[in-house]
């Protein structure tokens, strides 16, 4: 056995940040944004199912203790009660992990919230592959589950800027929303671009002649990093950020993909039922025949382990994205 082998990385605790070492971050952007929005809108209330601290809802609870409701580890009650509060004239934000919202409480979100089109905002922590705890906590198919639900708007934010700007828009928008929460120390990335979050809009963050990336969530951060690395290989990459998965900004995305450039989608989600398939169906409906390369998680239950190990294993790291693109370009 070699004594020089690198020590194996360890699975982080649940609250670990996925920020790169030294990266600019903002603490608990969701909690702060919700607390601020609540100062302007007295209808806003916060609920959680024993995961206040782990979904940054505790920041809101500290700021507005009388508007915070702990429902216990009861996700069906959480969303049924959120529906009842909306029926009573309030605007609830209800948080739990994405796996529990999507898998466990689906019927309650579907029938009690989405069918009557109530303004309830579902906040899901640990979307996609943002924990090393294995399939019990990795919501790799949350968007696939939720995309079939009528009336539900789905938002997959990239960073702290997206979250800060999205929260008041989610509160103001009619009908239910699902926010793929990034919590804790969340990277701040989009402040370096001419960008503002607009619900329902995709935005071109940078242009490029050879490749076009369409990405959502934390994969937009990776897409931007990979674009920088690819520039060193003389590959010019455009990045289109599509934080609203449903309804998808079809006009912007199809226009960007209807070119001879290599088209790549990047998402922190299974290749089944998420951004890739949303984009693919949009292209087909518009009669645009383009090959699209999906960067996303495999259609499989994923391993446990350290996030950097897993992101590399499943192709989400910036280095693996560069490899994928260079291989495609031959």
């Amino acid at each position, binding site marked *: 056995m070699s004594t020089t082998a690198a020590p194996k990385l360890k699975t982080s605790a649940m609250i670990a940040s996925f920020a790169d070492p030294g990266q600019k971050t903002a603490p608990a952007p969701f909690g702060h944004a919700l607390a601020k929005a609540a100062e302007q809108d007295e209808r806003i209330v916060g609920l959680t199912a024993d995961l206040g601290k782990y979904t940054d809802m505790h920041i809101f609870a500290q700021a507005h203790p009388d508007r915070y*409701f702990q429902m216990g580890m009861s996700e*069906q009650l959480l969303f*049924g*009660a959120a529906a009842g*509060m909306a029926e*009573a004239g309030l605007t609830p934000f209800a948080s739990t992990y994405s796996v529990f919202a999507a898998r466990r409480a689906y019927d309650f979100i579907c029938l009690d919230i989405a069918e*009557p089109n109530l303004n309830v905002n579902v906040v899901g922590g640990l979307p996609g592959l943002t924990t090393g705890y294995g399939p019990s906590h990795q919501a790799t198919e949350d968007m696939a589950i939720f995309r079939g639900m009528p009336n539900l708007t789905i938002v997959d934010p990239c960073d702290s800027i997206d979250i800060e700007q999205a929260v008041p828009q989610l509160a103001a928008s009619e009908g239910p929303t699902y926010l793929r929460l990034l919590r804790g120390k969340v990277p701040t990335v989009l402040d370096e671009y001419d960008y503002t979050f607009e619900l329902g809009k995709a935005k071109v963050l940078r242009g490029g002649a050879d490749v076009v990336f369409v990405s959502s969530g934390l994969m937009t951060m990776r897409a931007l990093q990979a674009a920088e690395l690819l520039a060193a290989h003389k590959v010019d990459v455009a990045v289109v950020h599509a934080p609203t998965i449903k309804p998808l900004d079809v006009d912007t995305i199809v226009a960007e993909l209807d070119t001879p450039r290599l088209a790549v989608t990047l998402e922190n989600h299974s290749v089944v039922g998420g951004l890739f398939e949303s984009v693919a169906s949009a292209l087909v409906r518009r009669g645009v025949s383009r090959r699209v390369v999906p960067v996303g998680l495999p259609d499989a239950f994923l391993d446990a382990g350290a996030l950097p190990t897993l992101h590399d294993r499943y192709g989400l790291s910036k280095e693996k994205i560069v490899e994928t693109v260079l291989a495609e370009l031959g």
Partner: protein
Amino acid sequence: MTTVAPTTAHAERLERLAEHAYNVRMHALQMGEVQGQGYVGQALGAADMLTVAYMDQLRYDVADEHWEGRDRFLLSTGHYAIGLYAALAEAGIVPLEELETYGSDDSRLPMSGMASYTPGMEISGGSLGHGLTVAVGMALGLRHRGLAEQRVFNFLSDGELDEGSTWEAAMGAAHHRLGNLTAMVDMNALQADGPAQGVLRTEPVLEKWQAFGWHAIRVDGNDLPALVDAFDEARSVAQPEGKPQVIICDTKVGSGVTMLEEREKAHFMRIEEHEWAICREQLTARYEAAKEAAR
């Protein structure tokens, strides 16, 4: 005089409710006959509960179904809609002439109750075990908004006691001290696959609710005087912050119509075309006899 007056008033109250309950049952039979089928057995069983709720306890404005000061009545069991439509018609919220559209295309009275279709329908039931969770949020929300006097009623069936979410909500209601919430459980002892005790044993039901922190009352749900006493007791302990109340009502499927009471119990009761007239005759005969006996 002072000792006689309340007694007389109470007798009049019961007499009035008995007539309403008779009417509610007739409305249900009318809807059942139009369809030639339906959950008539459940509607007749729950008719007294619905009558006391709508004709004696709930506050609402017939002219303004969205009046903010109303009490909320949430029907979890969507298939009991036939019973609720009958009560809404008796209350004047749904026009009587509309009952004949029950279950027809484009009707505001679909087979399974939905909020977007029917005036006075607060939620869409049908996926069982939802109603009490929504009721918890509504009671919390109304209290939070300062509408502290408004009460939230949730009608649920004994079958819904099989659902884990019902007990999540029961815990949540007690934890948040929702004294403005009243559950009414129709214990008709019948589920889709047969007698409830053979499907999943839920007894002891009274003790379960008590253990979950509720003010629990168990009563014969087809005994109007006992039902009225139970609802009055719940109202007397109802307050913005306190114990939620549950009225557990043992009812008889098909109650009020002898032929249906004696028929083999089924979730979806079969009634032949020529039998509807017999049902109405039996219902009327029973009502007239009881009225005579009360005098």
